């Protein structure tokens, strides 16, 4: 494997792996915060047990997230030393701020997880607040840096010298407001559906107690709020890209030639070699209307960019369309669920088909997160810092990149298998006797013994 490909593969694998844990790390604390809050207020053992069990799952997930995040931070330099030199100098402080947000999460997560019996209930509950804030803040800081890579501002580049650095204007680059909101919402959507899917699975296997219903209700409530907002945010993003990142937009919609009256291609394969579209469903004028509010709207095609500056539209277009498709499918499912629930006066819909659909939404939402990230990253190629630094110029000259890629990939596979096995075994553990006295008197240690994963 040539070094550039090895480095890109290693970075890509690391991010595909890490993003799942960062999404869970932002979303799960919100669920724990709500569940424990309700539990304390109503003295409800079911909500309490939910919060407590989520915290155990979160402990494992956080640990893997922390170490896989460390890999990514190191890899920014180990694989892309030239990239980190420019990025560090211009927008590096964002990573340092993210470090503080991460500190906040780690500190209070330690307190939350090990403090169930050491702290008064209210203090314990409040210790989840910094985790929720820290999670969202980390996402904001990191995605802001990624936004800057897409629309770099705050510096001048003259003869290989960077001058006039203005980090504040780099932070508030045009992409920041769109991308950060989209990513943070994605965390809540994916976590909502991910947790709901776990309970849908157990309900399909015949476990239908209050515990599973309440867990699924809260998860789907978060999804109900976040999913429509996410779709609106997605529309804002796409419109923004249609003028701010035109090459990426052309790849997303598979537009080869600059024109007005551009149709919307749903699915299909945009072949860059022949500049032809295969197997797509076309809606006349669709892309022009969606992006410019008029069939006369002119969309820049890939032909507006030099051949060496074009992203490959196949992966970008397919990722984009699948992500959008998943977004609408999950919205449909969550609306049906709540419509049935409310129409039947708060009787939990336990229809098999609906539960199957909810189960499907879990993995699909995480797939959508991965695909959305592919759209952003692959759509920016061949640049790592758009229009300033090519990915091929940023790669390291260090040896052994192939070995490094192989070793780290093997590590990810081992970690993923172990983690899934552990989480499944934990979820299958029988519930404790659900009375308020019983669940609150358990010590953390006992909990582990009883869960006995």
């Amino acid at each position: 494997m040539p070094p550039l490909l090895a480095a890109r593969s290693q970075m890509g694998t690391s991010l595909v792996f890490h993003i799942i844990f960062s999404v869970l790390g932002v979303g799960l604390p919100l669920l724990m915060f709500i569940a424990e809050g309700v539990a304390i207020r109503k003295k409800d053992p079911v909500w309490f047990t939910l919060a407590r069990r989520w915290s155990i799952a979160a402990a494992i997930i956080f640990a893997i997230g922390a170490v896989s995040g460390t890999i990514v931070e190191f890899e920014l330099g180990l694989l892309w030393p030239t990239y980190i030199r420019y990025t560090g100098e211009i927008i590096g402080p964002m990573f340092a701020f993210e470090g503080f947000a991460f500190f906040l999460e780690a500190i209070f997560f330690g307190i939350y997880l090990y403090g169930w019996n050491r702290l008064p209930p209210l203090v314990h509950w409040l210790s989840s607040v910094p985790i929720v804030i820290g999670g969202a803040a980390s996402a904001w800081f990191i995605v802001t840096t990624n936004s800057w890579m897409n629309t770099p501002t705050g510096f001048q580049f003259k003869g290989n010298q960077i001058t006039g650095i203005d980090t504040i204007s780099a932070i508030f680059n045009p992409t920041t407001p769109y991308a950060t909101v989209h990513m943070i919402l994605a965390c809540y959507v994916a976590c909502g559906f991910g947790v709901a899917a776990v309970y849908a699975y157990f309900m399909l296997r015949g476990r239908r107690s209050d515990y599973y219903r309440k867990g699924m209700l809260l998860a789907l409530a978060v999804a109900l709020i976040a999913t429509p907002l996410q779709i609106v945010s997605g529309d804002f993003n796409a419109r923004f890209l249609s003028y701010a990142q035109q090459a990426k937009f052309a790849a997303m919609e598979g537009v080869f030639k600059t024109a007005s009256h551009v149709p919307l291609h749903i699915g299909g394969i945009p072949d860059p070699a022949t500049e032809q579209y295969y197997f797509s469903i076309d809606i006349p004028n669709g892309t022009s209307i969606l992006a410019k509010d008029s069939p006369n709207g002119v969309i820049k095609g890939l032909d507006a960019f030099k051949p060496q500056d074009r992203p490959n539209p196949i992966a970008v277009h397919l990722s984009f369309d699948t992500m959008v498709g998943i977004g609408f499918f999950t919205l449909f499912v969550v609306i049906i669920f709540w419509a049935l629930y409310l129409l039947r006066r708060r009787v939990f819909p336990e229809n098999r088909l609906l539960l199957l659909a909810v189960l499907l939404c879990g993995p699909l939402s995480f797939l959508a997160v991965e695909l959305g990230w592919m759209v952003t990253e692959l759509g920016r190629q061949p640049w790592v810092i758009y229009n300033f630094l090519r990915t091929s110029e940023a790669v390291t000259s260090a040896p052994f990149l192939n070995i490094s890629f192989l070793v780290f990939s093997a590590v990810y596979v081992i970690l993923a298998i172990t983690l899934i096995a552990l989480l499944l075994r934990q979820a299958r553990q029988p519930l404790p006797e659900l009375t308020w006295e019983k669940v609150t008197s358990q010590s953390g240690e006992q909990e582990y013994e009883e869960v006995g994963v």
Partner: protein
Amino acid sequence: MMFLPYIILSILWLSLIAYAVLGGADFGAGMWVLLAFGPTKEQQRKLIDMALGPVWETNHVWLIFLVVGLFSAFPIAFSVLSIVLFVPLSLALLGVVMRGSAFAFRTHAKRRGTTEAWSYVFSLSTIITPFFLGVSAAAVASGKILVREGTVVANLGTFWLNPFALVIGAMAIALCATLAAIYLTVEATSMDDTEMARTFRLRGLIAGAITALLGALGLLLSPPYAPQLWQGMLNHAIPVVAATMIIGLGAAAALYLGYYRIARPLIIAETAFLLGSWGVSQFPYLIPPDLTIDNAAGAPSTELLLLIGIIIGMLIIIPSIFYLFYIFKFQGSMGVLEKGNVPETRVPGRGTKVPSLK
């Protein structure tokens, strides 16, 4: 604004010390899991798990802060180190990943076989990281990373493989083990397990002696392998190095006599002075012989923003960390002047044992 890089570097150096005394001890504790033997083997591991559980992730974040702080404030230096130390840093990173995940897996996997297997991964990986971080530090200190006009001149594969770097790597392992053993004497005493405290007292003394030996060996090897560092030390770091040695002896004495709560801050100070003497010896170079702190520093406006951010961040983080350690490490801990139960020593003329304050 010429002083900005110096302030930031000092903060980063303090973070390095924090990582060494906190994260380093977590690595050391992992080694004691590997070396747990005797009838109390299971209790030893349990004590270590309880000591690490609430704090290891927070301690680990210091490493992340160091990395991002370095590339924000000294982008060229970080990019150079990433290239020349690709192999040792990748290996250290591998250790970090395996250690963290293995710890989570073994704490939460209560099934015997799984726990046992991940325990081995956990304890073996805790040796890898300190060793390769030590090797990397020695490679920087050796002054062989040549940077000409922004590009690196070095034998990328093997220049870091020399006796000096290997000794420093081994010393890092021994130091981590010493730190952990001393902390564990306090943890064990706080839980009224005097037998366990004595076990770790003995291990702390042995690991400390090995650290001192390797340190002396490293000092002997530095004139041929790290001449610039040696010169720098002779020129302006003699007092710091002397202080390091005296504090080390103090820590050993406190540990020997059973004053664990005094030995703990002393070994922390020892580590701080050790890393401090490295920093002072190589001043004003960041990566000798070509990159000084001044010419490796990034843009002043970025540094200023970074410093403001660090100050605000620390104002939030430091009290939070104290709160965390207060809950899990100081509440119900043994008293500062409390003396642990140590084996009777037969020194002539000192037949009576000092009674414990308990």
